[in-house]
């Protein structure tokens, strides 16, 4: 993606030509590009599955597929979106931006960086290959609770794929931490680091802490399924609820892993387009740290109905409510950044604003879910589906789109088509709300999750939701077109690109040279 502009300070070979360049690259920009394209491909794949799901749910009854196939789509949609779209996109952004933002020439461990990327397509080939096997793809939900999952066909492939993805994430996180701790330009203290870098420093620690736990959960599952152990089987003295504890100990920090980089991105974009410094820079850092620490002690709020003792339920309710506070602080700080700014509404800003509003709506429904007695009504209904899609789609995904629009001119040297960008935004914004807002209603009315078919009283809002989904899905093809076009054509971008943009990445040319900051820049307090 980046043009091959030679930096004449050093004696370099340029990047190799053709496919070998992409196979063997150790350049953080190339690897960032690989991650981003992989993530886009997975986003479209997972999105196609979502289209299948919403098409089936358009009406009550089974029109298109049997429930086995439906459960497979639901499962794979979740796995692909989480592990194939959202996480790799954030890693791609980390690769592109962290070295430039801290004034480093590349990541600390470039060859490991390459391996971290190439493990991902391998893992997904293994996972998706189950579609062609007897027994089919996994159909036990992305949360794969035992004992439903222990007796499912083809779980070995699923487990293997998850292990490989985990190794990729762990190695990537080690890379991020080592880079940030060791390769900042002289004069750049930790508190002076841009917020996106901070968000990734914290996210990397979370990943290292919890990916091994996921690996433990899937390994125990494999043992139970094939080697006669009884971790999750009461017959042998085990407990199905143990699986849930281990899984959600990973699962809850995982959702913060999927949102913290979004917080970092949003801070950058809101500040740039308000032409004002971010309000409360250090509070924003402390808030992210508190969120990360608290994320370790709330996991059982996903398990309020399994029959935990009262004391445990009370603790998890209170801890979950507490997490709302640092998150709220961040929202207030973004609003305070906008206040008395001088604001323009280019596409990145539109996505960032929508992120703040819609993520907050998702967060507020999360607060409702934290109230345990009320959660007995919400749990495993579409209310939960609405909540997490709000924080993930107009949350994480919008922030990724915002980031792409914001930094694309730096990567390609071309401005994207602003009119088309705004069109993509509005179609996505309308699509996302029409899809997910009605899901609050059907959830409250009692429609359970993971249902291929539903009772008649849920029909109308499901139809509305499906139409929204088709709109949202189609609009992403527009996004694909916009991105491809910007790679090859468009108004030439300046180094700073955006009036009000601050940070080291805006001091280098657009497109960014293949190697940047080979001599560290001077950073003054």
């Amino acid at each position: 993606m980046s043009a091959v502009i030679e930096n004449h300070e050093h004696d370099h070979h340029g990047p190799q030509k053709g496919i070998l360049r992409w196979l063997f690259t150790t350049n953080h920009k190339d690897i960032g590009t690989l991650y981003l394209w992989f993530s886009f491909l997975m986003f479209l794949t997972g999105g196609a599955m979502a289209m299948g799901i919403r098409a089936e749910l358009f009406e009550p009854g089974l029109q298109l597929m049997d429930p086995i196939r439906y459960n497979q789509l639901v499962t794979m949609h979740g796995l692909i979106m989480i592990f194939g779209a959202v996480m790799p996109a954030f890693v791609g952004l980390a690769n592109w931006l962290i070295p430039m933002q801290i004034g480093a020439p590349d990541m600390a461990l470039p060859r490991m960086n390459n391996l971290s990327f190439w493990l991902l397509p391998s893992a997904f080939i293994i996972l998706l290959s189950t579609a062609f096997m007897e027994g089919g793809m996994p159909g036990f939900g992305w949360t794969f609770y035992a004992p439903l999952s222990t007796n499912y066909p083809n779980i070995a492939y699923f487990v293997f794929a998850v292990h490989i993805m985990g190794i990729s994430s762990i190695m990537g996180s080690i890379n991020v931490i080592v880079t940030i701790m060791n390769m900042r330009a002289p004069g750049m203290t930790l508190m002076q680091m841009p917020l996106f870098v901070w968000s990734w420093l914290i996210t990397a620690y979370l990943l290292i802490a919890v990916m091994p736990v996921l690996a433990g959960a899937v390994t125990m599952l494999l043992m139970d399924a094939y080697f006669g152990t009884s971790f999750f089987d009461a017959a042998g003295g085990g407990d199905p609820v143990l699986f849930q504890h281990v899984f959600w100990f990973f699962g809850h920090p995982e959702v913060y892993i999927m949102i913290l980089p979004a917080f970092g991105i949003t801070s950058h974009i809101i500040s740039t387009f308000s032409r004002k410094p971010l309000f409360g820079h250090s509070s924003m850092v402390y808030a992210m740290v508190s969120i990360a620490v608290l994320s370790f002690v709330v996991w059982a709020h996903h398990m309020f109905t399994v029959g935990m003792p009262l004391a445990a339920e009370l603790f998890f309710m209170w801890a979950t409510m507490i997490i709302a506070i640092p998150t709220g602080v961040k929202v207030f700080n973004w609003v305070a950044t906008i206040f008395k700014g001088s604001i323009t509404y280019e596409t990145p800003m539109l996505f960032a604003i929508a992120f703040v509003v819609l993520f907050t709506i998702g967060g507020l429904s999360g607060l409702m879910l934290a109230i345990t007695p009320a959660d007995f009504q919400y749990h495993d209904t579409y209310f939960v589906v609405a909540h997490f899609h709000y924080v993930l789609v107009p949350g994480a995904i919008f922030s990724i789109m915002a980031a792409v629009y914001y930094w694309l001119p730096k990567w390609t040297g071309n401005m994207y088509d602003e009119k088309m960008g705004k069109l993509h935004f509005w179609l996505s914004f309308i699509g996302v709300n029409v899809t997910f807002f009605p899901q609050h209603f059907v959830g409250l009315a009692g429609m359970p999750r993971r249902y291929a078919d539903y009772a008649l009283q849920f029909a109308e809002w499901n139809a509305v939701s499906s139409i929204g989904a088709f709109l949202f899905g189609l609009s992403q093809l527009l996004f694909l077109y916009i991105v491809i076009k910007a790679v090859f054509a468009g108004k030439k971008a300046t180094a700073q690109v955006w009036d009000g943009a601050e940070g080291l990445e805006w001091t280098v040319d657009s497109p960014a040279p293949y190697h940047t900051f080979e001599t560290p820049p001077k950073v003054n307090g």
Partner: protein
Amino acid sequence: MAKNNFSSKIFLYLVSAVIFMFFFSFMLVPLYNVFCEVTGLNGKIYGPSSFFVKDDVEKKDSREIRIKFLSQVNESAPVNFFPSSNEVRVWTDKVSKTSYIAENTTDKQLTLTIIPSVSPGLAAENVKKIQCFCFEEQILKPYERQEWPVRFYVSSEVGDNVNDIYLSYTLFETDRVLTDNMNHGK
């Protein structure tokens, strides 16, 4: 570039940590057992209680608690499994006896594991079983009917707000064997 920034001390330390973690995962098995026994989480009960083998010991502060017995068969195993009595009122620290009936409805020999569960979970550590068919595997010959006794007591340490305890047993089939020279008993 400075040579050998790499410290062999750190390397040794990291390798030992990995080896330790590997063996720690085996240590987790007994550690988990101890943790659950101590906290009684999930209504788990382990092994026979041997502290009080004297019968009918009446202690101070003994009070009456109602115990209800439940049975459940897992994965529709072909066994009729039910308690001989549905509930009993016991005094804490006093040993009581009950039994469960199991009838093999097939012409095959069945090997069974029976897992207990106590509700409320936090009362589990106070339900002390002295003799229980849940301590080991049970075998039922074709069409055989057995009565399995349970001797237990509820310790007076049980929480003041607990007046009802459910003791539930779930029967799991671990093996089903058709053998030719079985006497088809009734």
